[in-house]
């Protein structure tokens, strides 16, 4: 009996979390799938009506914009935040004397609620108030930085603010990873005559594959769920040029009392995530097994 307990202990430790995830994630996804097939408005209803919500969804130009934005924003945000986070982690790893201060400076954006920070960004990026006005004030009349008010460019300002907010955390994640690499190996590489950047690129970073996975999941999660950021910075505007699926869904679910529509958009969002994350996980986890 105790032996049984012992061999199954790891599984039993994992079981509560697993069950919780089954119920609270997969159960709820199933629930959402169900609701997405109904005409739920203010509150969920459960009479299946077919795929009307999906038809409405695909007929909405705003959803098109939101999906396009998701791909632009997601790709840029993940890549830039990852690269920047890694770069900062590496720079900070060079036995910097003021590491504590600098680390906190890079991290603090995470601590601030975007409801307010968005306003600050809005001012900074606003051509009439912020950077453009300031630089022009210095005498560079030709300087222009008006992405925020340009429907074609506004999505990139979201990237700027999102990177600002999250890259510090990615840096922390990578820093922890860097710190777990055995120093002897770095020494060996130094003696082998490997320049520092190659030590990072060829020896340390490859051994942080799992940490990359953490960073990717975190960033992808943020990209998918970016919501306050958009609301606070552009409110989805100009027009709905910076709408994202998350804002679309929120608007449908709570501002417009169109829960069925929100559920269908959530399902599509999750399908997209599934299509991207599953192959990635598959390759990562399989590589670890051999």
């Amino acid at each position: 009996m105790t032996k049984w307990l012992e061999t199954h202990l790891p599984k039993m430790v994992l079981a509560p979390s697993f069950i919780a995830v089954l119920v609270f994630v997969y159960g709820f996804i199933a629930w959402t799938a169900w609701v997405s097939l109904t005409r739920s408005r203010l509150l969920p209803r459960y009479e299946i009506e077919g795929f009307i919500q999906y038809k409405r969804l695909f007929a909405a130009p705003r959803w098109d914009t939101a999906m396009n934005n998701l791909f632009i924003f997601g790709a840029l945000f993940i890549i830039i935040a990852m690269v920047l986070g890694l770069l900062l982690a590496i720079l900070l790893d060079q036995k910097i004397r003021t590491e504590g201060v600098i680390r906190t400076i890079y991290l603090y954006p995470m601590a601030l609620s975007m409801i307010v920070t968005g306003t600050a960004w809005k001012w900074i990026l606003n051509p009439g108030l912020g950077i453009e006005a300031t630089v022009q004030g210095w005498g560079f009349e030709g300087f222009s930085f008006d992405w925020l008010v340009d429907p074609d460019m506004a999505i990139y300002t979201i990237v700027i603010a999102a990177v600002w907010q999250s890259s510090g955390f990615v840096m922390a994640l990578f820093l922890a990873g860097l710190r777990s690499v055995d120093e002897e190996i770095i020494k060996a590489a130094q003696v082998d005559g490997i320049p520092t950047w190659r030590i990072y690129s060829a020896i340390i970073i490859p051994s942080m594959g799992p940490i990359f996975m953490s960073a990717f999941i975190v960033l992808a999660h943020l990209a998918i769920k970016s919501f306050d950021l958009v609301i606070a910075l552009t409110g989805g505007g100009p027009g709905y040029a910076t709408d994202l699926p998350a804002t679309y869904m929120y608007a449908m679910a709570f501002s417009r009392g169109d829960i069925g529509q929100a559920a269908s958009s959530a399902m599509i969002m999750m399908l997209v995530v599934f299509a991207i994350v599953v192959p990635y996980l598959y390759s990562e986890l399989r590589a670890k097994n051999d």
Partner: protein
Amino acid sequence: MAPILEIQNLYKNYGPVEILKDINIAIEPGDFLVLVGPSGCGKSTLLNCIAGLEPISGGRLMIGGADMTDVSPKDRDIAMVFQSYALYPTMSVAKNITFGMKVRGVDQETQTRKLQEVASQLQIEQLLNRRPGQLSGGQRQRVAMGRALVRDPKLFLFDEPLSNLDAKLRVEMRSEIKKLHQTLGATMVYVTHDQIEAMTLATKIVVLKGGVIQQIGSPSEIYNRPANLFVADFMGSPAMNLIPAKARADGAGARIEIARSSGTPLVLIDEHAPALPEDVILGLRPEDIAEAGFRAGADVQDASCLIDMVEPAGADTYVVSELGGKPVTARLHSETVATPGEMLNLSIDMSKVSYFAPDSGQRLN
């Protein structure tokens, strides 16, 4: 010729603990320096300092005539094998070995050739695609060797590179290293605990103890003329017999008396002995004590001893007897018919005797 490595008054502390004290070493190009010393005496630390992996706390370190104190390891042009291997965990064996070349821009063909060469020297051809995690201890150690051997640096640093290999392989590797040293004229600093390795490879041996150099010299100097009791005791296995004795001037030489359990002291005459204090410690290697009749020479003197213990060990038989209150080991041929409790006539080669001062431990002759 300028020394390729020159260490002047080097000190190294870890926090308050002094690990290396006033180290002075100079190595000429082509030298093969072997560092020996008890575990924890600072050998690896010294290699780390030479490689620039640990900052030194005092003194100077020059490689090829240039001061290296502020030069980073990668610019020192050295290759090193780590005691802990330190393989790159994500790279295959082949990549571990060729990575340094690749970075240095060595062309693909040379890389492949060198890799093949080294892999066959180290007998790891069939492991090239494995990851370090899939290797046995000895295999990892050989990969670590391989990483250094493909290089062509000013200086090789080896930290116990053969400790996890079996005797046969070790002999083969040893001769590969020796070949490398001779054909390339490479300069080496080599840490080992294997005395045969030290003796057969070194052109110069440094004996360290507690971070202080005890003696620097050629293998035969170290073996035959240890500078102090520590070196005498440390080098050679089984260790040199160190026998308290009384010396008295006797003509040109000295008359040495050693207490014996049987009562009458054993008296030996050393015709070449220098002036000695009354109390001395006599150093005598086990192989310099033979069965009477098996060794001939002017300085060979016979002594009849009570045998306490007989230890057959394959090729040899060790016989232990008490002299001067200490167990004294003699190495006899394996055919010896010695029996504990009986007397045996042993012959001692007085030309090989070392004398030490009991208080300072310093060599006297």
